[in-house]
């Protein structure tokens, strides 16, 4: 099993960051590689079990399902139902924690999945850097000091 772990500090209060992260239909707002997103079946984006159907700017399409959402713990867990990447059993969690010193936010994004030994290192690096870290940096760019 391959694992991705990325964490960062966002210089904004956790509730401000969480307003973006908790929106399961909001990837286009803070993930630079995502072009558009919709929730299937017109369900609310915070209904656990809902499915987001989104398209990357490179044309790749994905379907992911919201498995858990906690406004109390600032956590969101989801899996991939369909994608063009050579992986399976993909499960990811985003978690925020307030940093009392400076009223900042600790943000971490983890993912686990199965992939062939040949594909795994490239997938880990790509998801970690170009997806998760890129999203954190975009949130930092949008929210820092606000």
């Amino acid at each position, binding site marked *: 099993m391959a694992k991705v*772990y990325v*964490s960062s*500090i966002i210089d904004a209060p956790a509730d401000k960051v969480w307003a973006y992260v908790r929106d399961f239909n909001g990837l286009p707002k803070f993930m630079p590689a995502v072009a558009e997103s919709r929730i299937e079946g017109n369900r609310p984006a915070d209904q656990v079990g809902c499915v987001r159907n989104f398209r990357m700017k490179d044309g790749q399409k994905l379907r992911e399902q919201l498995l858990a959402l906690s406004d109390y713990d600032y956590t969101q867990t989801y899996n991939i139902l369909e994608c063009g990447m050579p992986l399976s059993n993909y499960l990811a969690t985003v978690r925020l*924690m307030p*940093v009392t*010193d*400076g009223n900042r936010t*600790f943000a*971490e994004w983890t993912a686990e999945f199965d992939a062939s030994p040949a594909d795994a290192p490239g997938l880990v690096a790509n998801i970690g850097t170009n997806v998760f*870290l890129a999203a954190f940096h975009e949130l930092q760019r949008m929210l820092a000091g606000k």
Partner: protein
Amino acid sequence: VRRVTVTRSTVLNTPIGTAWALLRDFNGQSRWQPGVAESRTDDDAPGDLVGAVRTLRLADGAVLREQLLALSDREHTARWCILDAPLPLHGYVCTLSLKPITDGDRTLWHWNAAFSAPDAQADALAALIGEGVFETAMAHVGRLLARGPAAIAAPLVGGDTADGIVVSRHGGPEVLVPGRVAVPPPGPGQVTLRHTAIGVNFIDVYCRTGYFDLMPIPGTPGMEAAGVIEVLGTDVAGFAPGDRVAYACPPTGAYATRRTIDAGLLVPLPADIPDEVAAASLLKGMTAEFLLHEIARIRPGDAVLVHAAAGGVGSFLAPWAAHLGATVIGTVGSAEKARIALRDHACAHAVLLSDPDWPAKVKTLTGGRGVSVAFDAIGKPTFWGSVAALAVRGHLVSFGQAGGDLGAVEVARLAGSSLTLSRPNYGHYMGTAADVRRASARLFDVLRRGIVRGAPARSFPLREAAAAHRALESRATTGATVLIP
């Protein structure tokens, strides 16, 4: 009673492994928690033994017992509870956890506590723990880690650095530059002190200029301070962390917030002697003690000359000599200081040194006989005048040269009045714990009875030591000056 939770978190600019190595040791909190003077586990249990019980002794003397409930190197988490504490709380459990921040290879430090406390005290306890303990530790560890791995290899309290004054070259007051000074861990017979007030003396000027070779370069001046014991080394008897103490002795190093020093040189401070009074009076007062009791042996009826009677040591010598029965003639540099010498320091007469005939004036005041003892720390400008003012078989005690180096003295000239000359060195009279104990006991006695005045006349922040020296050297000061860390 209500349940209270306290949470604090911060970002450490260091990889998680470095931070965890420091924080995981259940017996190591004295290395990173200001205010924890000592940690000891029961049966010397290792700091990663789950179930270990530690006794923490705080700098203020309070004692806590805590037990390690869980430790995870995988999750970078430690959890412990308080078994015993002099605080109105119960059921206290705290969890310290670290998380890696991969972006920048930093560390998140999260610390959470939950406890029950009476309603009226809950908020104050939450503030005490959140700010006084958690935030203080987080800020301290941040500074510690910023100084690199070497800083955390050594114990924090007693193995750290402190704010202080660093002299990198001899010179004027401007060489007294704020900086960081090393505070080595206390060795056998030593303690680490947190200073509360620091005495400023003319000997500090001599150290700064290089006139006396008492301070290494780079070095930190200062030979007098009061403070609280934070950490004991081994083989220290008679002292405990939290004890209030003072000292007045070489080696230099008092111009700092903390320092490590030999316990044998410390004077325990009685409850009725404030820290600033001790810092302002110990060196001058113990100097006056040995000059009066060990060297001059003042007797009732003696006429005694005290130079600079409104100044540092003079303001102790004059009233103390008067208390021993002497008639004290004080010399001063101004009419204002004359008033102070007469009003505050028990001088029977004050003589202006600006009058070139001052030795004759002193003779006249003693009915032509001259004084039995002259205490002279001015040096070159007054030495031969003091000789002239002394009676036959008189005693000149020359113990300083604030006004200029004495140079070579023709001893044969002293035969003109069969004079005795003493040139004492403080270290030779305050070199043992017994000397210091005797002198400090006598000093505290005359302070308590109001015979001498110990309160400092001026105080400066430690950082402004240069300003304190300028004031001292301008001769504008009367009474003692202290630096407050």
